[in-house]
């Protein structure tokens, strides 16, 4: 497993590099913007109302940074998978003692490692940036991070098994666009609205308003926490189930023609 994860990370290094450059640029601009708002010309001439709304842009930008990193983690996994299906790697890997479970597990673990690292980096950067700019850290942004993670896990739970089902390098590469596309829509439609919310309760109400009217009742205290715990548990269960589904798909494909091997092609010659 160690070797397989190392391979995935090594092959994903270009994605990670590009992502790091974008992140540093975006984060740098965000920090400069924050410092300018707090200490620069904007701070000197803006009214308190303008300042308040401007200061809200800053954490939103940081959340955008997190979204970029999470989506890139997914993209890295798809790019490596695409490469796997374009070369005879799967055939070779199935002939090694790694076995199907480890082969599939490496993909899931790599994704989790990259996403975990992305959240850690953005989390630390978020706290640093806000403390430099002396902006209070709001709990609702932590919830937004959690929401991002859940969204990403849910997307990957469906898309990773799909890659094993399709096993076509070119199509798999396009799958990476799915979470990006959905993410961009969600971010564009809801981010500004979320940014304008007053507090955490409003954030939950906001989600409830769009997700399900029944959830509105969960907007307080323990119930609110329970909602998130339940959501996390359900998505974790779906993610684990997705792993077993991928193992099953790859195992079933071994019975089929021309998927993990060129046996069918040879037979038809």
């Amino acid at each position, binding site marked *: 497993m160690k070797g397989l994860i190392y391979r995935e990370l090594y*092959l994903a290094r270009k994605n990670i590099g590009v992502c790091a450059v974008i992140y540093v640029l975006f984060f740098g601009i965000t920090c400069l913007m924050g410092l300018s708002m707090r200490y620069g010309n904007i701070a000197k001439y803006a009214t308190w109302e303008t300042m308040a709304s401007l200061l809200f842009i800053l954490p939103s930008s940081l959340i955008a940074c997190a979204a970029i990193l999470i989506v890139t983690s997914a993209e890295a996994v798809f790019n490596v998978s695409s490469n796997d299906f374009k070369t*005879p790697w799967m055939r070779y890997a199935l002939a*090694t*003692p790694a076995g199907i479970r480890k082969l599939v597990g490496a993909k899931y673990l790599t994704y989790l490692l990259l996403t975990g690292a992305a959240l850690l980096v953005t989390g630390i950067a978020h706290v640093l940036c806000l403390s430099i700019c002396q902006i209070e850290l709001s709990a609702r942004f932590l919830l937004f991070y959690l929401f991002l993670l859940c969204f990403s896990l849910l997307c990957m739970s469906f898309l990773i098994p799909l890659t094993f089902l399709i096993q076509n390098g070119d199509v798999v590469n396009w799958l990476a666009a799915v979470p990006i596309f959905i993410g961009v829509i969600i971010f564009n439609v809801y981010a500004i609205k979320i940014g304008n919310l007053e507090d955490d309760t409003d954030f939950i109400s906001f989600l409830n308003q769009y997700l399900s009217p029944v959830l509105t009742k969960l907007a307080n205290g323990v119930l609110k926490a329970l909602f998130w715990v339940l959501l996390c548990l359900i998505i974790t269960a779906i993610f684990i189930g997705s792993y077993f589904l991928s193992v099953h798909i790859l195992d079933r494909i071994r019975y089929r023609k021309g998927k993990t091997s060129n*046996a069918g092609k040879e037979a*038809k010659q």
Partner: protein
Amino acid sequence: MEYENAIEIKDLTKRYDGFTLDHVSFNVPRGSIMGFIGQNGAGKTTTIHSILNVIRKDEGEIKIFGLDHESHEIEVKEQMAAVFDELPFPEDLNAKVLSRILAGIYKEWDDQRFQSYLERFQLPYKKKFSKFSKGMKMKLQLASALSHNAKLLVMDEATTGLDPVVRNEFLDLFLEFIQEENHSILMSSHITSDLEKVADYVTFIDRGKILLTGMKDEILDQHGVLKCSKADFAQIDPKDFISARLTDFGAELLVRDRAKAAKTYSGLVLDKTTLEEIMLFYVSAGKNTKTFSAN
């Protein structure tokens, strides 16, 4: 672990649309090189993929080192290595990274041995595989296959497309590998001359069925090519030959029992044969054409 045959295949069956690997049975004795011969689409790759459990068999039994290859999959695969006709590693890697990857896959990965093979094959340690030639890529595959203490080497057309110098280098290495009494090789190839040099046993497969399996020397000794005129050909009992090739000058027939043919047709020329000729005659016989014309 005591076992007589490195690989035992019994009634292996795999069905595809338009092709069936039909109750294939043969053994690869421990300490030997088995050549696996057949034309394109004969079922060599399907058999090898079934042995490696890359594809699942429909029926039959495959034992490797005396163990079932599915229920003891990991144990068995630790001790075997596969070499394919194409480089399976991403071209973005180099040998240094590959060694780290394979060290995490095989328990007994030996980096020093890998490096010594790289030196022997004059392969660079830090150059990307995308810059390797076909020969270098195959050498790399072989180096990685031999660096985790494998006892069984399974090769699918590994020497195809290589120049004679590299092929010879490979054959020397196979003979070196087989010096250890527990080591065995199963190699499929179109290049029958290579197999004639190194194989102890050969198995012929055609259209999913095993035509012939046994010791190479016995097969070569038993078979012979009978050369005669067209008039003599008409007198020969069809039961005595496998198939025949008619030319403008006469006929050439592959006989199954050279000693018997020598007695029965003492007036005719009877030559020794090669694996390639045996394959051609058997394939021709399988097409239900007892005679065929050569250009």
